[in-house]
């Protein structure tokens, strides 16, 4: 019996204490007609060795291709110490620190996390995480609608250049509360949010403007102007930021005259492996005046009976287990372990380490773009400056190009044609600090081969692979 320690003697003694003839008798309050029989569709159990064999085969099956996809999940070096420490049973198998005296390790770590995130974003306060970047933005939108005292509006301005999956997630989560997302187009030349279009909305009633830095195309937005414009029009400014980029980019708390009001984003670049998309974590920081509208757990520093420093869950009156239907959010379990990893990760890298990682990603992507742009028909789509991703135009259908590259075990980027048909044959590429010059050359030579094959056999509908 996997993981069950009972001996036959234990079982008999325990049943005798209870006064039940057998274990089955303990289920006598369940109406017999409801009982299920054997779970026939569930396979028989396996030993650790057998399941190990199965999982090793499955993991190998996916081949570990050379990856140039970013699009919201980035392949960074994770120091060996990060997961060795985060996997310690004392972190891995604890739960939400309800009993503060027995959870000071997790609580202090979370307080340190809050401190690091406020330092990185230059905002006043941070919570201890939400599920991921996209759902964190949804919570930020709900928070803005609650918090904006100058506007009763339930409309939000969201740029089309924001990650398409984020726009979908926000819509799924906020639509049932009657919140409407109004899409802002981008400038086809620069890739930035179109400031002329923005002016059309001046004076209209919106709760908030969402400002991604950088946007989905990797392009840097004019965040000072956007933030000031939002405030001039009585909107809150919600920043969506990549935490590694923040090591080198202007902090949201310093955008424009007053800074952004809320900042959120995907925490994955801080120590979480790609791992098929999760678990990651969403972060959320905000101005002091909004702290009581924040969703999720918040840790405070306080004193114990002897005047000794300690850490505890605080402002719990915002939360579902106290306020029930009047809570700021339904969130309960968050992404604690990922935050544990991120805190250790940030401690190891420090501001300078993160800056070096960010600079290396920027330089590598610039190199990749330069090398690929030497191929016929390949070149950047937008003129705007980028951080570590860029949109490239291809001389053949993106889907076909990526499929052929994948057959050579190269994942050549994110296909933009479904979400942005207006961009034509476009691909979003990313080379983090993990990609070497040889990797970049590998991509170039494979893409060259794919393009040449296409030029030589232009009528062929499907590539050879």
């Amino acid at each position: 019996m996997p993981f069950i320690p009972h001996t036959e003697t234990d079982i008999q003694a325990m049943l005798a204490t209870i006064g039940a003839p057998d274990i089955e008798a303990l289920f006598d309050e369940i109406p017999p007609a409801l009982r299920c029989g054997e779970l026939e569709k569930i396979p028989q159990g396996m030993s650790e060795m057998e399941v190990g064999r199965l999982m090793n085969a499955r993991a190998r099956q996916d081949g570990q291709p050379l990856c140039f996809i970013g699009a919201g999940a980035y392949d960074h070096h994770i120091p060996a110490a990060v997961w060795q420490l985060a996997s310690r049973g004392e972190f891995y198998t604890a739960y939400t620190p309800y009993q503060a005296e027995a959870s000071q390790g997790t609580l202090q770590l979370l307080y340190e996390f809050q401190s690091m995130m406020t330092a990185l974003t230059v905002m006043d306060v941070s919570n201890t995480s939400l599920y991921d970047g996209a759902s964190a933005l949804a919570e930020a939108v709900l928070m803005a609608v609650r918090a904006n005292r100058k506007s009763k509006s339930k409309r939000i301005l969201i740029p089309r250049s924001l990650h398409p999956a984020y726009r979908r997630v926000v819509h799924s989560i906020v639509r049932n509360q009657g919140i409407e997302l109004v899409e802002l187009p981008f400038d086809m030349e620069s890739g930035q949010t179109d400031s002329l279009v923005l002016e059309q909305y001046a004076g209209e009633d919106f709760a908030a403007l969402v400002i991604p830095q950088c946007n989905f195309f990797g392009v840097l937005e004019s965040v000072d102007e956007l933030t000031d414009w939002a405030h001039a029009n009585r909107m809150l400014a919600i920043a969506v930021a990549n935490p590694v980029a923040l090591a080198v980019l202007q902090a949201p708390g310093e955008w424009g005259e007053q800074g952004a009001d809320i900042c959120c984003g995907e925490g994955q670049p801080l120590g979480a492996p790609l791992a098929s998309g999760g678990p990651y974590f969403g972060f959320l920081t905000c101005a002091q005046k909004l702290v009581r509208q924040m969703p999720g757990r918040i840790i405070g520093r306080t004193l114990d009976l002897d005047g000794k420093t300690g850490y505890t869950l605080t402002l719990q009156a915002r939360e579902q287990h106290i306020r029930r239907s009047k809570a700021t959010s339904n969130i309960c379990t968050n992404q604690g372990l990922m935050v544990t990893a991120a805190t250790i990760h940030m401690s190891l890298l420090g501001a300078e380490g993160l800056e070096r990682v960010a600079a290396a990603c920027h330089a590598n992507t610039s190199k990749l773009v330069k090398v690929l742009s030497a191929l016929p028909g390949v070149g950047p789509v937008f003129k705007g400056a980028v951080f570590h991703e860029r949109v490239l135009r291809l001389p053949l259908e993106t889907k076909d190009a990526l499929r052929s590259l994948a057959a050579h075990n190269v994942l050549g980027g994110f296909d933009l044609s479904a979400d942005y048909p207006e961009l034509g044959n476009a691909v979003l590429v990313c080379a983090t600090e993990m990609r070497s010059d040889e990797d970049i050359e590998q991509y170039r030579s494979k893409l060259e081969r794919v393009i040449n094959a296409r030029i030589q056999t232009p009528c062929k509908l499907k590539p050879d692979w």
Partner: protein
Amino acid sequence: MLIFEKSRTGRRATAQAPLQLADMEGIPAQFRRRQSAAMPEVSEMQVVRHYTQLSQKNFSIDTHFYPLGSCTMKYNPRASNTLASLPGFLARHPLAPETHSQGFMGCMYELQEMLKAATGMFAVSLSPAAGAQGEFAGVAMIRAYHDARGDDVRNEILAPDAAHGTNPASAVMCGYKVREIPTGANGDIDVEALKGVLGPQTAGIMLTNPSTVGVFERRIKEIAGLVHEAGGLLYYDGANLNAILGKVRPGDMGFDVIHMNLHKTFSTPHGGGGPGAGPVGVSERLEPYLPVPMVAQDGEDYVWLTEDNRSESIGRLSAFAGNAGVLLRAYIYARMLGRDGMHRVAEFSTLNANYLLKRLTDAGFDAAYPERRASHEFILTLKRQARELGVNTMDFAKRLLDFGVHAPTTYFPLLVPECLLIEPTETEAQDELDRFVDIMTTILQEAQNDPEKVKSAPHGLPVRRLDDVRAARDLDLAWKKDR
């Protein structure tokens, strides 16, 4: 001491970042950061020592008995972590093409199928990231179902007064009003009160079974009939699925939609507060609305189902495919248990709970529902001790910490005064349960002979009781350099 306070200007963990600062001339000055972030500057060994020492200030399943009711703190098998962390799984980009994802997708498809079989539901989506997100998805599907039928007067979700706080909070996030149903003196829902509030405005009801008071809702079939007759749907909060795995299935009880907390029943780690995973299962009529993405089988291949081929879906709840790594851990656990292991989960968690309940009541504690069988958990009420000895539930909870036992859930559900919700789980041995009874007996004696000792507990932990009022009044939420 905070990691920030161990910092020295210029100190670094040099091995962990690129050796040189690369050129950033492509980023114009107007976009650049003005001042480096105030992060700690420490060596690698300092980091390792600091966080190792912090970890030692935690109670955890690996180090302590952790009978936290409603949270199912059972042993988390090491194999689940090791195998889900194989390089091939960690390296897979969430947007990798299906050609390079068949191994991972196979695991996800089979997990969907096993969860369907274990719960008796028609279809399952794995995407919700936690129980509360599963609840949100479930209620959003209820709403999508009514909306699709043009039935837009249903604006009310019912939930027992003992429900988890997430239930009403999730219903409100879906735009519903919430009405509470009283729990009867025997722990079952007050069916007469339910009849009184069902009507054309009822969108659905959210129930946990066994309920949050730790007993099986015996009239569930009748309740399902009444709610369905009124045109409402039934939502199953899977927090207590551990109690009935392989014994009775939510689908057979008449539920239309459920969520499962894989970090409880399927033994993935709680991680100091997550990540969890909250897959949802539905009956046939709600199948079109399941959140995306899902995995389907197409001949020999596994394929993703997304917004593109599931137009009526309530949509996407996270950027990618939910907490995939947690799902892998649950899959590995499920494969190790197999079909026989699953019903043993219910059997031994129930055996442990009933044994512990009997021994504690024999030792002089009061059960909140003495006439009832315990499920996988049960409630003690310390009302008598609080009145007679002036020692309340929180005092007992804090004193337990001194004996190296994590406290059970306290003061939940709210309707039982001075309550402790105790869930031992199936992975604890009889001797550990006996030790817990001994400790509780000792604390009871202390409460009688030396109540101050209990009221001022804990005494042997890194800190004594903390000033929560001060924490909320003089907010100190982040370390600042100039403090």
